[in-house]
């Protein structure tokens, strides 16, 4: 099996200097008539131009990548194609005829289907029932089940129409969405970040399906920011930056580095790893089992791990396999057996967040708004949220607001948080800036052990590089870091050792250096019980 290349290491890509084939947006002189032609699409929202005169063509049967950072305007563009948003100006033609879908229903009728990043499925219902719900005139369930089976066999997407969606893995749920689209026999299939919820094995199954669809003449608009993935799958790539089409290129002949620089608009420094010698064990987890506080959560089952001072342990895994629960168990929000968690030898399993912070165990949760930070509170108040104790921001219970503001200012300066000042509400910051603030807040408190979950989720490339660099520097200064992430590239870039969470269990932990993609995929749970389809 060909290894899905989306988690090949960054520094490898950097050395693959291909001939540059990037050219300005409108240089294409193919004979083939375009399926969908977009010209001059513009959409402005108050204060921001989401799309500024974007033009490009999608040819029948091609896999066309739409590439860009968060906030580059990819979502707005596809929403316009799918009839969810109406453009301010510009035009689209489909099969040579003007195409102005007033709503998604019209788009589907015209042969445009879309698989969203977030699924809209009812967990308590079966696969067939869920598919029927999205149809205009659903056939009888038994006939529909037969159709689902046919389509799933034809395209190598193993799926049993009788199963309850609640029991399916994220990858299987995605197949339900894809099959729902395929039943409409679309001419253009839009896929929004489809691999973010998949293991490498599942990615490979998906890619085979997409290649087969493309061979049948279906055009695929593939939205992603994972460059290696695009290089292995896509025929064409259109790159958006700040709402503009900054270039079209042939991904197979362009290096990931070049595409990244077009995406960002400038070159940025890849994180540097200073050599470091791991010291004594800082965090030790033995037989940690806790039930999830939420009904749809995942219980942690018998977790064992240890992190040494000066070391970064990366924990991968598909979302919803116990990541949130592990962070909560370590931050102190979710109490466990006292002996299950030891911090420099002290049993802290029963301690609350404040006591753990006192001992130097700090955490940064995945959800920025509402968990790591209070959306309507100012940055000063949010700096106080976790910094109260270690930064000595109270005096006999009274808050030293001056000191809290100085701390907030220090975070803003040290971590280059773009904001008018510390009095701005957290929710007014962009995702990347708030993430820098949240990570910076913990890093500046000189943690002995830092636990982060999805440290660069939804963050632009430059900010992500800065955050990773901060984590590497922190480890170089002797802190132990446990980095939970769903971004395998990130984990391979910074971690010394790697493990994966799967259904609340932790895989064997192995040195990150000698792992290949297939091994990582198996550690993450393989294709979740499914045979790899043979197409």
């Amino acid at each position, binding site marked *: 099996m060909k290894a899905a290349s989306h988690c090949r290491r960054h520094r490898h890509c950097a050395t693959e200097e291909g001939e540059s084939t990037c050219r300005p947006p409108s240089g294409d002189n193919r004979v083939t008539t375009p399926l969908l032609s977009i010209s001059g699409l513009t959409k402005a929202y108050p204060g921001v131009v989401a799309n500024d005169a974007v033009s490009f063509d999608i040819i029948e049967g091609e896999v066309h990548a739409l590439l860009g950072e968060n906030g580059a305007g990819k979502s707005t563009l596809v929403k316009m194609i799918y009839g969810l948003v109406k453009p301010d100006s510009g035009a689209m033609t489909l099969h040579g005829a003007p195409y102005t879908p007033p709503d998604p229903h019209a788009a589907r009728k015209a042969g445009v289907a879309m698989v969203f990043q977030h699924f809209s499925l009812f967990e308590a219902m079966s696969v067939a029932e869920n598919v029927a719900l999205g149809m205009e005139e659903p056939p009888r369930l038994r006939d529909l089940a037969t159709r689902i089976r046919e389509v799933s066999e034809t395209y190598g997407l193993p799926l049993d129409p009788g199963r309850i969606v609640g029991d399916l893995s994220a990858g299987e749920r995605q197949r339900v969405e894809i099959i729902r689209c395929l039943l409409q026999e679309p001419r253009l299939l839009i896929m929004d970040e489809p691999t973010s919820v998949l293991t490498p094995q599942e990615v490979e199954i998906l890619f085979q399906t997409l290649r087969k669809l493309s061979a049948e003449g279906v055009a695929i608009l593939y939205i992603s920011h994972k460059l290696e993935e695009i290089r292995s799958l896509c025929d064409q790539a259109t790159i958006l930056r700040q709402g503009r089409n900054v270039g079209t290129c042939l991904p197979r002949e362009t290096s990931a580095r070049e595409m990244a620089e077009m995406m960002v608009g400038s070159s940025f420094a890849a994180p540097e790893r200073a050599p470091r010698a791991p010291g004594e064990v800082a965090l030790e987890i033995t037989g940690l089992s806790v039930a999830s506080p939420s009904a749809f959560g995942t219980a942690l089952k018998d977790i064992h791990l240890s992190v040494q001072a000066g070391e970064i342990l990366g924990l991968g895994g598909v979302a919803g396999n116990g990541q949130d629960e592990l962070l909560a168990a370590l931050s102190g929000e979710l109490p466990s057996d006292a002996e299950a968690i030891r911090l420099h030898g002290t049993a802290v399993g029963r301690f609350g*967040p404040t006591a753990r912070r006192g001992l130097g165990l700090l955490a940064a949760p995945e959800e920025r708004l509402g968990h790591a930070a209070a959306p309507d509170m100012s940055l000063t108040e949010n700096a106080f949220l976790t910094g109260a104790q270690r930064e000595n921001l109270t005096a006999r219970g009274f808050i030293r607001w001056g000191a809290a503001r100085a701390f907030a200012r220090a975070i803003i300066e040290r971590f280059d948080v773009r904001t008018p000042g510390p009095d701005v509400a957290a929710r007014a910051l962009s995702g990347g800036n708030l993430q820098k603030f949240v990570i910076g807040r913990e890093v500046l408190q000189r943690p002995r052990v830092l636990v982060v979950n999805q440290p660069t989720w939804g963050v632009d490339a430059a900010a992500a590089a800065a955050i990773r660099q901060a984590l590497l520097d922190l480890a170089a200064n002797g802190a132990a870091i446990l980095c939970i992430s769903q971004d395998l590239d990130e984990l391979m870039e910074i971690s010394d050792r790697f493990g994966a969470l799967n259904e609340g269990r932790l895989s064997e932990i192995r040195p990150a250096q000698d792992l290949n993609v297939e091994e990582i995929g198996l550690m993450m749970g393989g294709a979740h019980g499914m045979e790899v389809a043979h197409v």
Partner: protein
Amino acid sequence: MLKLEKRPQPSRLWTWVTPLLAVVITMLAGGALFAALGKDPVEAIATIFWQPLFGEFAFYYRPQLLIKGAPLILIAIGLSLGFRAGIWNIGAEGQYIVGALTGAGVGLAFYPTESVLIFPLMVLAGALGGWGWAMIPAVLKLRFGTNEILVSLMLVYVAEQLLAAMALGPMKNPEGMGFPGSRNLRQYESAHNAELITGTGMHWGVVAAFIAVIFAYVLLTRHSLGYHIRLTGQAPRAARFAGVRPARLVLVCLGTAGALAGLAGMFEVSGPAGQVSIDFNVGYGFTAIIVAFLGRLHPLGILLAGLLMALTYIGGEIAQSNMGLPAAAIQLFQGMLLFFLLAVDVLTNYRIRLARREVA
């Protein structure tokens, strides 16, 4: 088409303008209501808002403003702490009654001994009574996960029965010729919450209300407990992450609200009301909920809202007796105030834009 657009952060200006706007809209809608009842709307509104302050008998009504405003403010301050943290105590009326009973009970127990210690003891007993009554929903919530809204509300009716039983039984005035109701505490010097300056309406309850406003202001803006209260209300997950123990907050918030409501009851029974009677409670505990929200759960706002609400009470009574407006119309008028306040609240977080129709 009008379109609502979320503001990047809540507008500070509109936070303070919306209550005034709500008052103006209430006047307009209330005027329409009074007109529909066949009364002159301008005269009715003027009677409610103008007469008590600047009318012919203002010398009598102005002290009433403090007497009626103080319990509202005292209770609303306590409630606002809980409301900020997402803890919904709807039963302040019950805590108010029980505080009055325990406070009056201590005073009556000492009758006819005269001592300067009796009144302070009554204050303590009143606060403890209200606190204890509020601890029932608090403990049930923490122990069994019951809903504090329902429990605290139902306990109001229990407290009313208790009040009736006391007025007719153990606390009945032995020299009252068989009439229900206790001895009049106004005629028992050691237990009387008298006016501190004659003719102003200023009694110890008013002083307590002002102290509560200052205390709450300092707590919410300067103290970490106040910060935790605000944080819990705005982002409960972030509060747990910060290390706030939700159980402790439930106890603190319900306890404080209960104690302040109990104090209000005690100051009322030993002063303006004078005795424990069957109809002692007049709904301060419920109106205080309106006051708390009208004041944006902010201590200074509550101070102003409490006075405004007292004004509508007094003005409403004048309108009832002078213009023959039904009591229900006045209650409706007060209810409208909260209704419109919640409605215009949207302007704090959203701005209105004229926009072309767009498929969302």
